């Protein structure tokens, strides 16, 4: 048995190590807390029923941000409608059907590359393809398509992981009872993977909701007198609105800038909380 002094020193080293790790963790948490606290503290005074339900007046200096809120909602919805079916279908293909081949590896490299493209490049791509070439014009449609492509890698990779985490034994049992592969996927694998897929979708959409560059050239407008009535209309949107009022409007009350930021933050963090709730509820109900 080691001398007591040696053991004491070893325990001391261990405690120091844990303390260091804890400190590092706290350091990472501090910025988040500061950002949220600062934005909410400065922005809360601006939040009022008028702020949330009225359009801007006096060149944005007064009034509310309703068009921007609605615009972000439309864009998020549009992104979801476009990205989710394709993303989930691709994930099912990659997780359940795709053989290990050069073709499959190429697809995976493509998806990973898609994830690494800077968002402003997506914006320019969207401008070229959707706005100009396909003649959607600056519109919710063009913005949604652009954001959807940007969101695809996130959805595909989290959905694929959710599918892979379903125990293989379930599939074997289903097949051994006379099921086809598709029956196995639709009746057992997909329902079990659904919470994980949903979490990935929410997180992907959350990111799309907060991006400025992809909608800069494809959907966003500085000021619109009317709310959009069709997907081919342009729209105001929270991230772009925040950018505009912070940089392009002289004499803009700081209060309203913070208020806009607070609304955007709450929207995005709300989705985060939703995703976490979905995930923890699914874990609690897990039957394996």
């Amino acid at each position, binding site marked *: 048995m080691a001398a007591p002094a040696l053991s004491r020193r070893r325990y001391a080293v261990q405690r120091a190590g844990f303390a260091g790790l804890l400190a590092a963790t706290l350091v990472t948490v501090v910025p988040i807390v500061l950002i949220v606290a600062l934005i909410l503290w400065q922005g809360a005074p601006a939040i009022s029923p008028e702020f949330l339900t009225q359009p801007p007046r006096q060149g944005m200096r007064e009034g509310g941000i309703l068009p921007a809120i609605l615009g972000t909602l439309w864009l998020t919805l549009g992104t979801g409608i476009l990205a989710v079916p394709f993303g989930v279908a691709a994930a099912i293909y990659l997780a359940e059907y795709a053989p290990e081949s050069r073709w499959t590896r190429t697809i995976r490299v493509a998806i990973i590359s898609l994830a690494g493209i800077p968002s402003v490049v997506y914006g320019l791509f969207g401008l070229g393809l959707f706005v100009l070439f396909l003649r959607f014009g600056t519109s919710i449609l063009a913005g949604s398509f652009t954001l959807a492509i940007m969101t695809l890698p996130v959805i595909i990779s989290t959905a694929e992981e959710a599918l892979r985490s379903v*125990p293989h*034994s*379930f*599939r*074997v*049992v*289903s*097949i*051994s*009872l*006379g*099921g*086809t592969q598709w*029956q196995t996927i639709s*009746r*057992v694998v997909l329902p*079990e993977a659904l919470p994980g897929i949903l979490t990935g979708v929410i997180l992907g959409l959350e990111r799309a909701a907060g991006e400025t560059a992809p909608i800069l050239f494809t959907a966003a407008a500085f000021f619109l007198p009317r709310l959009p009535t069709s997907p081919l209309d342009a729209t105001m949107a929270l991230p772009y609105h925040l950018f505009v009022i912070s940089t392009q409007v002289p004499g803009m009350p700081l209060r309203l800038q913070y208020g806009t930021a607070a609304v955007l933050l709450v929207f995005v963090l709300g989705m985060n909380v939703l995703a976490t709730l979905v995930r923890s509820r699914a874990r609690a109900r*897990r*039957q*394996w």
Partner: protein
Amino acid sequence: MVAATAHSEGAPMAAARLPGEGHAIAIRGLSLVYSDGKESLRDVTLDIPAHAITVLFGPAGGGKSTLLRSLNRLNDLTDVRHLSGQIWFDGRDILRPDTDVIALRRRVGMVFARPVVLPMTIRQNMTYGLELAGERDRQRMEQLVEHSLRAAALWEEVAGRLDQPAVSLSGGQQQRLCLARVLVLEPEVILLDEPTSGLDPLSTGKVEASLHELKERYTIVLVPHSIQQAARMADHAAFVLNGQLIEVAPGREIFTRPRDRRTQDYVEGRFG
């Protein structure tokens, strides 16, 4: 043993005698090599008699599970580089690519080593296979469910709580549920791969007792998890070693008077 040369179609031929006639399953010259080069089975030829328990025993890694899984084409799910030979069931070679494997797997059911209940209620586990097959008649399904749960000696324990999650059952109960889940499809053959390996002796006893009763109506192929179980259960037994079939004999003989030296060494515990 009928030579297999004349069979180019695999459909029943009126003129020639089919291999293994009179038996439930006839395996002829089965060889299997996995993609990683590992040879699993080498030229296995074996008859599985109907309405009896045939035990495949031998040391781990010898190919018993692979052989068992070939009987319901479950090896289709693994990466196999080479597969040759024939497996005759109901007048057809089930290894042919045009075999209806879905129908095959309903007629040749399988119980695995670890009880795998689907993440659903007990009732849903039972009706899963029926619904896959397109069964819609709720009443008929209920009758089949009760009948099969009784046959697996599980009915009394679950009758009142069929709508509870299947994972709420104990290990032994789950395994009997897996057996009942196979029975509900009214198969002809039941394959069991070490079905009692994780179970306590009481549950093991219940499963073994069920199998003894079931062999009246079904053909049973069992990979036991111990040589004692093999001796308790076997009407017929086949000793499998390193992918080869060494010896086949009635249960009474093979454990007491094996003919091959290697079988004797294994039975007496000199290796394994």
